[in-house]
């Protein structure tokens, strides 16, 4: 004890006892920058450098190719179906789970998260087992000439599976945090359930909802593994943008593959930008309490 007492005052006043020395600090920051550069920044930069490797004309030629355009259309179509479905159902799930106490609530919450712990390839496989030629409903579908696997419905189903939890898992904690006093007050004052939802619930959760929709959309447009299993890779018909990247890459058309990849990379950057903006501006109205 005595030697602590004598040592303490000798420590210089400007060096905080709960901080590292400037050299260690610099080394740690350097290490973090190096880690993020090796794994994140270099690959991201490569996408754009390779995409413009043969000049802007080759880049634009790939993007205006009819197969690329149809991949863009299909990607938008798939997102336009699965994002609203998952948003409405995710909000319904959040309403049931965050506002009511019922038997099996925690089981239901776990089941909603289930798609995140299943490999995307397995997500695609389960639909092949159901609707494929040798699947459970295969003979029935063939008899009625309905195509699901190797067609657009299969892609929509597989994408909806993998993007299933995004909205619900953002809204559930947010609505639990907010509690239901506002809504009860609205009802007491005579609002109809519909009016309560539009004027109280929705304004309260709008930023959290946008956050969930944003992540859901990014994954829906970028999903590869699940969609690759069910699509059949028919160019111009069942290729989404990520599948088109794969097809061009396998043709050794690197510039083309990276050009299409650059659209998806831009989408990712846009998503990250909006997401970060939401976290900075509306941190209090999101389920997460993250420091920025």
């Amino acid at each position, binding site marked *: 004890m005595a030697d*602590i007492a004598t040592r303490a005052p000798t420590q210089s006043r400007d060096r905080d006892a709960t901080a590292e020395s400037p050299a260690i600090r610099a080394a740690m920051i350097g290490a973090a920058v190096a880690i*993020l550069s090796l794994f994140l920044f270099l690959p991201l930069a490569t996408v754009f450098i390779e995409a413009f490797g043969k000049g802007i004309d080759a880049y634009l030629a790939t993007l205006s190719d009819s197969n690329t355009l149809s991949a863009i259309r299909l990607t938008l179509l798939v997102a336009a179906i699965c994002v609203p479905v998952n948003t409405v159902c995710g909000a319904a799930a959040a309403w*049931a789970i965050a506002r009511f106490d019922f038997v099996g609530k925690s089981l239901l919450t776990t089941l909603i998260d289930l798609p995140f712990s299943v490999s995307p390839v397995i997500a695609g*496989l389960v639909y092949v087992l159901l609707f494929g030629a040798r*699947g459970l409903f295969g003979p029935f579908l063939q008899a009625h000439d309905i195509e699901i696997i190797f067609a657009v419905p299969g892609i929509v189903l597989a994408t909806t599976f993998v993007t299933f939890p995004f909205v619900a898992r953002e809204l559930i904690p947010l609505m639990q945090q907010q509690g239901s006093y506002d809504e009860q007050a609205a009802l007491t004052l005579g609002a109809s359930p519909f009016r309560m939802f539009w004027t109280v619930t929705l304004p309260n959760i709008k930023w959290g909802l946008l956050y969930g929709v944003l992540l859901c959309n990014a994954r829906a447009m970028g999903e590869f593994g699940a969609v690759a299993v069910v699509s059949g890779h028919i160019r111009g018909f069942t290729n989404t943008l990520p599948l088109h990247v794969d097809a061009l890459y396998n043709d050794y058309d690197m510039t083309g593959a990276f050009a299409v990849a650059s659209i998806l990379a831009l989408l990712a950057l846009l998503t990250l930008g909006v997401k970060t903006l939401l976290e900075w501006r509306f941190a209090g109205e999101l389920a997460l309490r993250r420091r920025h």
Partner: protein
Amino acid sequence: MNAPATFVRPSPLPGFGPALGATLLWLGLLVLIPLAALVWRASGLGLSGILAIASQPRVAAALRLSFGLSLLAAALNVILGGIVAWVLTRYEFPGRRLLDAAVDLPFALPTAVAGIALTAVYARNGWIGGFFDRFGVKIAFTPLGIFIALVFIGLPFMVRSVEPVLAEIDPEIEEASATLGASRLTTIFRVVLPPLTTAFVTGFALSLARAVGEYGSVVFISGNIPFVSEIAPLLIFVRLAEYDTAGATAVATIMLALSFAMLLLINLAQSWARRRTGNG
């Protein structure tokens, strides 16, 4: 405590029925019935059938590779993610917010894009691959390349698990430790890190679960050589392409079973760590 005697506790709020109904319909049609189809198919094979497929050399090699490398990648992410989380929560420096936002890039970047980009960087003619090639180390198209892709995909899980817990540690306990004469290193290892154990275990579990099933960011860099660099999710593809539905089902079932077993183990470790440190 106040266990509901009825199915749902009475509430003044409307809409429970429709909301739960929509949820169950959505969950049942999209997730539960399809997964049940997998279980149904697998039960048709029987346990012995599944085990026979699991012990086929090529299947066993793919499973070993996938699970082994995923464990290693999650382990490396404990260190890398720990450093990144530490720097982002503890230090103020120009560009910190940008770095913090960039951590989520693997979440936002489509896996196929990440896959071809990582391959380009780590191939022999790439920026980093070229550097290592001079020392005779090949990264892309070897298990090492798969490892790199799995670290990439797991890193944000670790950082995002550790960051909030690290930010909430009260500086006073560190001050107390320093006042009592502990060196900075002792304080970090004996005072700061122990309460982070559960966060690290969570990050490890999430990173592992994602890596085991990962496909898009791995298939381009892996080279896909059977017995050497063929991952389990790819083998499902191969079996489907061969019209071997039973084989694909068996591999998928084994992957799911192993994943759930590992997550269960990790949950046990989690509650053990929580009891030991008295920290959620």
